[in-house]
């Protein structure tokens, strides 16, 4: 199982400091909930999409839309039906199918959801997980919390492999039933012993991990060393200034001009 969300690419987003970028993400996510013009929201969506396209490629840039497509369809189907007031645009007999207000509301909701999705996804694509961890540490995340996060990422492939092996072993117990004949009932019957065994394997690794952590010096009062530091090219202040300027300029352009 691959746990990395980083996508190698090009452009400013890869140079932008992880701490400053995180602050920009936060500001932009707050901004989409403030009263901003619809053109502003869609410009933000377009800018995020174009940034994703430039940083990676077109196919990769479409990926976030694919993941939220189901929710988008639900939104388009259900949101207009619940707004009855206002100027009726489409009517089925006496029943108003879509009003102007409903479409305006749907437009804002879709743009907002797409905007947040692209902003968050772009951060994950353009920032290595180790840098995200260091950025969170810079914002005050404790050493122990950062350690839990790092260890969890290390353990995911191990537990995933163990689970797959246990699953295969249990499937062999029903070797007379071929893969094509295996129904939902067979899979469900396998689930309970597989889940129990997988949890026991995971639990058995806990005392070993705890001992390893003690041997590596966890709990000692001396300050921890770090092999990696975040370096902002051009100075952190410049990056932080940019992180505030980007949302502010965007806000001013679309709400005052």
């Amino acid at each position, binding site marked *: 199982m691959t746990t990395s969300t980083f996508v190698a690419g090009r452009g400013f987003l890869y140079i932008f400091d992880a701490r400053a970028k995180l602050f920009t993400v936060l500001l932009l996510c707050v901004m989409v909930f403030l009263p901003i013009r619809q053109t502003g929201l869609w410009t933000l969506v377009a800018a995020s999409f174009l940034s994703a396209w430039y940083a990676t490629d077109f196919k990769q840039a479409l990926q976030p839309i694919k993941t939220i497509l189901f929710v988008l369809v639900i939104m388009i189907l259900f949101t207009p039906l619940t707004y009855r007031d206002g100027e009726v645009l489409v009517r089925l007999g006496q029943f108003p199918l879509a009003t102007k207000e409903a479409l305006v509301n749907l437009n804002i909701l879709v743009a907002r959801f797409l905007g947040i999705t692209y902003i968050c996804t772009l951060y994950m694509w353009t920032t290595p997980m180790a840098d995200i961890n260091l950025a969170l540490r810079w914002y005050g995340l404790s050493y122990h919390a950062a350690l839990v996060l790092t260890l969890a990422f290390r353990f995911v492939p191990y537990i995933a492999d163990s689970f797959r092996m246990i699953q295969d072993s249990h499937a062999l117990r029903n070797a007379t039933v071929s893969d094509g004949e295996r129904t939902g009932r067979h899979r469900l019957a396998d689930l309970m012993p597989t889940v129990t065994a997988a949890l026991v394997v995971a639990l058995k690794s806990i005392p070993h991990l*705890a001992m390893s952590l003690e041997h590596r010096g966890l709990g000692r009062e001396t300050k921890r060393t770090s092999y990696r530091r975040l370096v902002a090219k051009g100075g952190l202040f410049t990056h932080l200034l940019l992180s505030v300027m980007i949302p502010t300029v965007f806000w001013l352009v679309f709400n005052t001009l």
Partner: protein
Amino acid sequence: MKSTDSSKMTALRIALMAVLTATVVVFTLMVRVPTPIKGYISLCDVVITFSAFLFGPWIAAIAGGLGTGIADLIGGYAQWAPLSFVIHGAQGLLIAVIARSGLASGVPGDANILKLILAGVVGMVVMAGGYYIAGGVLYGFEAALVEIPLNLLQSGVGVVLGIAVSRAVLKAYPPVRSLSL
């Protein structure tokens, strides 16, 4: 270099949180049960309920919140990660608090089955309600209504399997009691 007495507890607590978080991630992304409407429900709630019944509120809250948050990040739903962290964290915390209430000794999983079910039902309401509110804020309360039945189904399966698996693990691996903090 001094080693404090609490360092063993700290190491064990960190190991517990890390391994259970990773388990929640794996169960969210890898273990999926097909539903009649050609969809899937994940089994993350099984591990959250299991953690709550065996390891108490804080471990369950961190493992549940962090695990589902990481799964959202890896699975391409980064926008949901902070919300999942809060919702599943609260779910694990409340399940454990209710299961543990009035228990003099042992793990919360030893409690009366009715109390475990009650704790699970509260967890279901927190999960489905939390995602409804979060979905409502993100993409409208009308569209978010559609997800309530699926979320209730997923957390319901989580509670049933969580209770069964907790009992099974306590029998299959008794040393698990010594890991409970």
